[in-house]
């Protein structure tokens, strides 16, 4: 399936602006619900989970740009990827802030113990820590400076996504349908990449051989 849609520069600017506003809706919703005292009987948990879920959802959107390219041939949407990645980091930061502030009241002893003792917390915390260098090196200057290593570094996003899904999976009590949904989406997004990589290699043995030599 080849789609030839190619927005103009101006259109892309508009799409970016629209996406920027859309990506703030989950936060605006929480503020709205908070102002109207509608954050359920357990507001802290609600806010914490909502932010975490949106971080994961935005990450899935970020990771879908390349599969869209592989499936349709369209490339312009790759220009949206950085913004979405940074929004993922934005929601992860808010999620983490909610955890250390509202949930744990900056009780550092309790936080360290919680991270060390409970695998789901450790896994989530690791994903957060791993996301920091990606956010820091997301600007053009860093892309130019790091060159090939930038690409290698940013492949960490796959690990972050896997850790994020595990974090969610391990925290639910029994009904795993929601984390399962994210696991399937992630499997699909990574699967498309792997399939294309495999197809490219098997279609062009010369390329594979060159790669092996390199």
């Amino acid at each position: 399936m080849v789609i030839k849609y190619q927005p103009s520069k101006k259109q892309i600017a508009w799409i970016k602006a629209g996406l920027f506003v859309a990506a703030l809706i989950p936060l605006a919703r929480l503020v709205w619900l908070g102002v109207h005292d509608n954050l359920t009987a357990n507001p802290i948990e609600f806010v914490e989970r909502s932010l975490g879920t949106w971080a994961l959802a935005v990450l899935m959107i970020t990771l879908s740009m390349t599969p869209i390219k592989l499936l349709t041939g369209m490339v312009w949407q790759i220009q949206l990827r950085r913004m979405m990645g940074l929004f993922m980091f934005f929601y992860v930061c808010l999620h983490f802030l909610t955890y250390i502030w509202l949930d744990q009241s900056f009780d550092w002893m309790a936080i360290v113990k919680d991270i060390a003792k409970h695998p789901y917390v450790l896994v989530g915390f690791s994903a957060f820590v791993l996301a920091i260098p990606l956010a820091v090196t997301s600007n053009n200057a860093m892309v130019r400076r790091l060159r090939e290593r930038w690409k290698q570094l940013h492949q960490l996003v796959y690990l972050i996504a896997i850790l994020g899904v595990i974090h969610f999976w391990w925290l639910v009590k029994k009904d795993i349908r929601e984390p399962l949904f994210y696991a399937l989406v992630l499997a699909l997004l990574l699967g498309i990449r792997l399939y294309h990589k495999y197809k490219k290699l098997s279609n062009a043995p010369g390329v594979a051989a060159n790669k092996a030599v390199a």
Partner: protein
Amino acid sequence: MFIGRKSDILASEITPREVFENRRGFIKAAGFSLIAGTAAATGFISGLASKRAEAATQRQKIVGYSKTAYGAGEKLTDYDDITTYNNYYEFGTSKSDPAPESMLFKPRPWTVSIGGEVKKPKQISIEDILKVAPLEERIYRMRCVEGWSMVIPWVGLPLAQLIKFAEPTANAKYVEFISIADKQTMPGLNIPVLDWPYVEGLRMDEAMNPLTIMAVGLYGELLPNQNGAPMRLVVPWKYGFKGAKAIIKIRFTEKMPQTAWMKAGPTEYGFYANVNPTVDHPRWTQSTERRIGGGLFSPRIKTQMFNGYAEQVAQLYSSMDLRKNF
């Protein structure tokens, strides 16, 4: 209709008349509020309003229960929080599900069967259960295994009184509580998260402890459906999931019953499930808890051994390793 021939449809498969009628009533109520509440504009809002209105009319005061000293000085959790934040998987796994999803559930008429190690199996209606012993208000802390807690003014009778009525034999070492699993009115049963019906159990001495009650109401009114109407178990020194809701069967057994949560996660949920800040759930901490109702900036509070009821119940477990018997 063939007279004198037995129907080959199980009675349980036929939608009870009350449910059917209630649906009609519900549709009617929704229609009325749609007309009356045109200002509300959307069908969604008026539908919700009619559900609320219906829930309000179903609230029924309990006459003649006595107050007790339990829970003196505790700040009660709001009625709205107690009735909208529920773990009741028969109505859905989200804590906001039970309140709206239990609207069609009919807690009356209700008959409880008592069997197993008893002198003689019995059936008893909920009306008669309310007369087994004088009803009392018990204000108890409730600590959920997930790490949150409430203070709830239950109305109920000591379980010991109901057990006396049941007349268990000397062989009875445990009591098993089986909840209703009615697919017609409980949409959550379609999801196999637990091995339905919900089963809970207590050791006899735990069941006979004066703290253990069979609750039939809260805040001086009959139990709302989402809180386990018409009767539910309340064992305040144990995690909330021990409190089986909408109980239809009570069985006395010689062997320890296999509870629904033990089957679902034997390494995470034990038979005893005593509130214990020193024994963590394998995945999260049990040393602190969040008291519901404190808002966005309320800190966690320390969880107490046996949920603060150690004085009354610690002796039940004096010879046991609570790390193993979690």
